[in-house]
């Protein structure tokens, strides 16, 4: 039977033959080689327009600067290229295929109208150095998005320049530092809770600050005593994620702000979880001095397999003078332009104006929702997370009992007894047709299962997910090996990451 297609069954290591028929593999999981391996000399997928000026002799023009041997790029026909990337795409899981409850990443639906408007020729083909008076349409987009984000956050000023959340953190902490310097002393440390995302401490370091970790309290929140004793004249700011990475709102937030402000320190808010607050409460109102947003999370610009994103930074008026250059201003005649003349600015964090294409998408999302839509979205996201919490808390350990906002974080304590860890449960979830939750983050939870459904999921999909999680819990009891060997349904089984890191192969080379 070896030539009948029989996907492997756990335990049995199949001969290659059993997954391929001769040289070929059924189309949904084509045996797709690397693009370089499919290349053959002379194939072309391009045709340039006829050259309407005299040809030139490159060698003569460039002398020894001419490239003598071509780069080893592949040569394929157009249909082969379409097939290559189409087949590769079928090996990906995506929001478009099902629930993607990756905690903290807010994998919500990405409306297709966002993609359409971002590709309108007048927007997609605009050169960043086009004179301002010819770019009024582009500046309208920047202006309206800034206004909307300021209203949503309750802050006073904003920059859209940062390209992602971490880039926003960098910008926000630079503002903090510039302000402290303007007060005569940049200060030395940034306080960061042990529950924080890795980008927070990494950012503080790049900005020349030393990181002081804050132990979370029993509820996974800020321990006010610990904070009070930690804050002093050397404290530049506290980087706080609110709701926290365990999905809990810091209800002491105003006290936290007071403690910091009393010592002249600032409150930085990591806004990655802003999707739990939009339309319900505003950081600007509860004492935040500076924060970043992730447009690719809260405002639905697609994650695109890892990016691009956009991480605007909003701040209070006293930080406005330090914003990166340029900033958008309106002239008396109502004409909009970029202002570069900002002596106190921290400078630039990126060339040009930021990921404009993401501005367009985020603005389209905001317009599609409006005030009521944004509030509804937040409420649904929180409701969905609490629904999952309610339906799973009997089988999975809930380390923190505080009320959940947009996500719920369980631990694998119960399953660990059978030797099954959060990573194994995640892999088994794949067999059930879902992308796993976020694994082993935040660090304050041993073996965390961080689940964020977002508002996009229907009750039907949530029930399927809950059903899957409950069955896996049962499997852990009855047949842990099945879970330990998961996934069983994917094109590749678990991959050897150790060897990958020990002997890195980071590129293809001609054999």
């Amino acid at each position: 039977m070896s030539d009948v297609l029989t996907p492997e069954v756990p335990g049995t290591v199949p001969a290659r033959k059993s997954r391929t028929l001769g040289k070929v593999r059924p189309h949904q999981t084509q045996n797709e080689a690397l693009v370089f391996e499919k290349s053959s000399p002379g194939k072309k997928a391009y045709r340039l327009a006829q050259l309407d000026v005299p040809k030139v002799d490159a060698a003569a023009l460039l002398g020894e600067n001419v490239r003598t041997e071509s780069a080893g790029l592949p040569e394929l026909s157009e249909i082969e290229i379409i097939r290559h990337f189409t087949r590769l795409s079928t090996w990906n899981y995506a929001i478009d295929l099902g629930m993607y409850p990756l905690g903290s990443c807010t994998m919500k639906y990405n409306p297709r109208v966002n993609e359409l408007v971002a590709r309108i020729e007048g927007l997609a083909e605009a050169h960043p150095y086009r004179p301002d008076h010819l770019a009024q349409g582009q500046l309208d987009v920047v202006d309206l998005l800034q206004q909307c984000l300021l209203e949503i956050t309750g802050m006073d000023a904003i920059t859209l320049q940062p390209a992602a959340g971490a880039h926003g953190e960098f910008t926000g902490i630079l503002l903090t530092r510039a302000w402290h310097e303007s007060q005569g002393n940049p200060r030395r440390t940034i306080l960061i809770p042990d529950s924080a995302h890795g980008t927070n401490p990494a950012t503080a370091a790049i900005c020349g600050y030393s990181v002081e970790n804050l132990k979370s309290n029993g509820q996974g929140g800020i321990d006010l005593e610990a904070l009070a004793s930690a804050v002093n004249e050397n404290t530049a700011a506290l980087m706080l994620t609110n709701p926290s990475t365990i999905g809990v709102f810091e209800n002491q937030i105003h006290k936290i702000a007071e403690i910091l402000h009393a010592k002249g320190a600032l409150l930085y808010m990591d806004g990655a979880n802003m999707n739990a607050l939009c339309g319900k409460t505003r950081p600007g109102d509860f004492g935040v001095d500076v924060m970043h947003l992730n447009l690719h999370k809260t405002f639905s610009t697609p994650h695109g397999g890892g990016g691009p994103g956009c991480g605007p930074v909003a701040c209070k008026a006293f930080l406005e003078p330090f914003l990166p250059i340029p900033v958008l201003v309106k002239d008396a005649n109502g004409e909009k332009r970029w202002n570069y003349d900002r002596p106190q600015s921290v400078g630039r964090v990126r060339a040009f104006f930021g990921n404009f294409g993401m501005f367009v998408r985020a603005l389209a999302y905001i317009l599609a929702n409006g005030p009521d839509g944004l509030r509804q979205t937040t409420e649904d996201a929180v409701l969905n997370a609490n629904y999952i919490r309610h339906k799973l808390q009997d089988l999975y350990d809930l380390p923190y009992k505080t009320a959940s906002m947009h996500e719920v974080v369980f631990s694998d304590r119960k399953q660990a007894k059978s030797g099954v860890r959060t990573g194994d449960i995640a892999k088994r979830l794949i067999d059930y047709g879902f992308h796993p939750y976020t694994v082993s983050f935040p660090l304050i939870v041993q073996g965390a299962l961080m689940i964020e459904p977002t508002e996009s999921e229907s009750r039907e999909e949530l029930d399927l997910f809950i059903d899957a999680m409950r069955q896996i819990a049962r499997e852990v009891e009855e047949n842990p090996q099945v879970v330990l060997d998961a996934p069983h349904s994917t094109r590749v089984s678990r991959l050897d990451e150790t060897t990958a890191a020990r002997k890195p192969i980071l590129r293809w080379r001609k054999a």
Partner: protein
Amino acid sequence: MLHEIGAASIDDLFAIIPEEYRLTRDLAIPRQMGESEIVEWFRNAAAKYTIRHTSFLGAGAYRHYRPVIIDSLVQRGEFLTSYTPYQAEITQGTLQAIFEFQTMIAELTGMDVANASMYDGSTGAAEAVMMAVRVTGRHRAVLASTVHPEYREVLATYTKHQGLPTTTIGYDDTTGRIDLAALEAAVTSETAAVLVQSPNFFGVIEDIPAIAAIAHKKGALLVVSIAEAISLGIVRPPVEADIVTMEAQSFGVALSYGGPYCGVIAAKEQYVRQMPGRLVGQTTDRNGYRGFVLTLSTREQHIRREKATSNICTNQALVALMATIFLTVYGKEGIRELAEHNLAKSEYTARVLSAGPGARLRFSGAPRFHEFVLHTDEDPAAWHRRLREEKIVGGLELDRWYPELKNATLWCTTEIVPREKIDIAARELAAVPVEA
């Protein structure tokens, strides 16, 4: 659902928010729009100025033709709506594509390895210099004033708080290349990195071997920034560099008023563990099949936190995919042919624009790719007005960043600029009003 989880109302779920901070009014943003209204809103914004015009703008953002299949493929939901491939078994599509991207960038730049992308060319350059600092353990940097001015501004922002003083070297007035003598004098045994751009901001190709010699003599690393990736089709790659940082926007990425673009860092093998950003590596699964995974992540913030090589997390993956498809479409021969067309167009433009009495080329003493600096006796503001009448946006005024270069403008001609428009531009430039 509310009922099932035992909540009386949705507000119960937000009870934890202190009352005084709850928002009890609607947000003051535009009302909810229908899809057709949204499309209309952006159409009108886009229509404020016609796009059916011709532009000679370059300077770090280049309009090249974008093969149609790029958007057909990157808009497949499986690519568009997935995220960082943390779960390798169900993200092999993204992982293999990134592995192919890393290979293509390495092939093009002449480096051994490349990462999965940085935000853009400017942050890439800054990260590359900081990488050199980690590699050498030194804390000074020397850079050319011919590096894109905005890249230099970003570098300044990044280095400011890292105790990393930088020295900027001027350019030779006839070649537009970095002043080698001044460079030689500036590089010391304290120097971690020498940063140059080639083709540089004036479009001039730097003498990389000579610069490398100077840097290496003092044990500094040479970091070469490339703002126009298409140049690699015809311009010799900076193989003497230790780190190459590049803006890949020219590889099939729309101008989009400045972003999203795609930065990359490529380097010599031995420096890979100091690289910022994600790396995809090849490995095998339990059954011996080839597969790909994110690797060397101990460099990254989610593991290393404050000791990470960078704080980057979300990168420019989908844009890198566009570049990968673009490079596959053009391939080995196409990328060269395309570069040659750009060279020819720009040569022709330089010739006809400088033909008139009132205009002359600057920096003609060294080879260039598809950009050049033109000096006009007439104030650019004047002829810009004439060109606009013809729906043409002329070269970029340089005195904005180089006060010494009054009346000097930077022109770029890519393969998509039709000859007739070039001729019209030349005519208008030459048409200096008599009273002027």
